[in-house]
């Protein structure tokens, strides 16, 4: 069971990364307009760079 010493921290860090990504997404307002974002992807206009 020594492998747990590496595996548990590894899994927690990976999970923590996911949580950090969620925080970042939330902070940068990515959950503000789910309906609009799902449509914008269909438009050519934002192909080069996303609208600010």
């Amino acid at each position, binding site marked *: 069971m020594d492998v747990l010493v590496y595996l548990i921290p590894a899994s*927690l860090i990976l*999970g923590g990364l996911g949580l950090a990504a*969620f*925080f970042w997404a939330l902070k940068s307002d990515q*959950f503000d307009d789910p*309906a609009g974002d799902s449509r*914008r992807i*269909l438009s050519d206009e934002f192909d080069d760079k996303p609208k600010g």
Partner: protein
Amino acid sequence: MSATETPSAAACPGCMTLPAGNTAVAKALAEGPTRKVHLSLPSIHCTACINGVENGLMQLDIVHTARVNLTRKRADVTIDREAEVEPLLDHLCALGYEAYALDGATLQASDADRAAHELLMRLGVAGFAMMNVMLLSVAVWSGASDATRDLFHWISAAIAIPTIAFSSQPFFKSALMALKAARLNMDVPISLAILLAAGMSIYETSVSGHHAYFDAALSLTFFLLAGRYLDQKTRSTARSAAAELAAMEVPYALKLTEDGHVRTPIAEVVVGDTLLVRPGSNIPVDGTILKGASELDRALLTGETDPVAIAQGDTVTAGEVNLTGPLEIRADAVGEDTVLHSLASLVAIAEASKSRYNSLADRAAKIYAPVVHLLALCAFIAWMYVSSGDVRLALGIATATLIITCPCALGLAVPAVSTVASGRLFRKGLLIKHETALERLAEVDTVVFDKTGTLTAGRPQLDQPSAIPATEFAVALALAEGSAHPLTGALVKAGRAQGIVPTDLTDITEKPGYGIEAKWGGKPVRLGRATWVGAHPAPVTATYLDIDGQITPFTFADRLRIGAKELLVALRDQGYQVQLLSGDTRPAVEAIAKELGIATWQADMLPAEKANRVNALRDEGRRVLMVGDGLNDTAALAGAHVSLAPASALDAARVAADMVLVSPDLSHTLDAIRIGRSAKRRILENFGMAATYNMISIPIAVLGFASPLAAALAMSTSSVLVSLNALRAR
């Protein structure tokens, strides 16, 4: 509630700007060279709309940035600080997008945004922690023992305790508030279960026990937060959208002094002041006309379609719209003494007398909360007795009882259904403002309508324009073009649609309160009231053209709102009792009632009479859906079992109503009733499912057979089942 009471809201949708120095918003915005404005775009729905609106706005020089939010049907625009909002609205209208300016409500909306953000953050943290602890628990359930199990429990504790401290705060806060007020609400058993589960588990872990409920405590938090988040999201979207549509407001009056007229805040006008009211603006206070003649549009206040001619000595009421000529009025009543304000107090009385509706969730919680506490306590006492004082065992079983009965399913039962139902209604152009509006809608058996602005568009239209001789029409069109009167507006619109070219006239002058006169190659021509041009007045709304003594009448009729006919037919077929209560004159109301086949109708009703009628129906045991838009409807809207106001309604009416119809199609009211019924059915089914599940699981928990694995399984299955059932609300 009255127009004069809330100086923060702005003028009519077309001409709103921020009232300078009035609110925190204005101050904050005044600092930079640009300011942010928000536009409501009720009709946008697709990718092309997003691009159309954003690119369309960017064409204007005053616009710096524009971003559309499709979820909220809103655009956030940065414009030059000095620039007005009006050009944006006009430009969007020209492009074919309906747009309204929003104002002070934005602050509240961003508060709601923050609350939603916060909940989402707590939900994310709870989800993360739940998944990790679940993984560790699976290892324990599948047979990890001794040191490994203890290690896993400790790690779970390390994840769970901070998570509970952070994510469960909304429940703790609400439970504390309930307990302080010596009440029990749903959050009391929830908080107790979470705390007991966490506490028990820490103790068990510290003595190397077999069972820890960290996963249960976390999944409880997660599922309930999910319900809470759905709830918040549905209501904040609807509420902000409803609050955001700007409305009629009269924050300033033009006071006449020795140095000419001065812009004065309404609050500073006193009785006896002389005020100037320009054509096109609202009457700020109740008063008497000292000088001038004009016509007043009273549609919003009384429901009358036809403008009323007034002259020196007549009285005017706050909230009416001055149409044609400038007026000098003496203020007779200001602030709380105005008729407008007495309407507001009528609303307050109606709201107070409205029987307090107990939501289904409240009723369920009232039964549920005491029962659960008693059961857990009984289990504890019984097991103390059976095991002759083994506190650890008895407490463990009491905790298991609390966890397993805990209302995951109950917590999701209502929000999941109302999210689905409101989402469907939102797509049909209906905003649900009040949380229990859907449930109440399901109980409706009587529908009461207002006429002007609700069943009808509230705007007159020229009758049979093709029957009018072209020469006369051309002269009338030339006369009408310069006037702001609603009848001439309708005439011009009909003329343009017919392709009529206005005749060249000279010396066009408007006689406020009477009509317009001009010269047509030496011959005098006049367009106006029957008495003025010397015509015999017809019983319908009409204006008369006089060409050198030869009279041509132009008659007008109010157009029915789209979907009004279909709605009335469907309502009758489904056995609803329908009534029409209007403040308009008898012939006008009778015509509409006949056209729509409404048997019970009443004309010339005062606001208080409308409210009394609705109350009388309620006392008969009827559940009334009131649909109305005017100030004269607000008291009735507030007093009815459930109420609906079209988006074109006045602010006060929209505030009083439980639902707002954004779509111009009135027949969506029917969808609302149908979806309300189906939503109520789903909610009851969900409660039934939750109750069945509790009936099975409580004996298991009380008898001490509930393991953490069983608790986790039961909780997840019931939550998933309830959510799936909610999706059927359509």
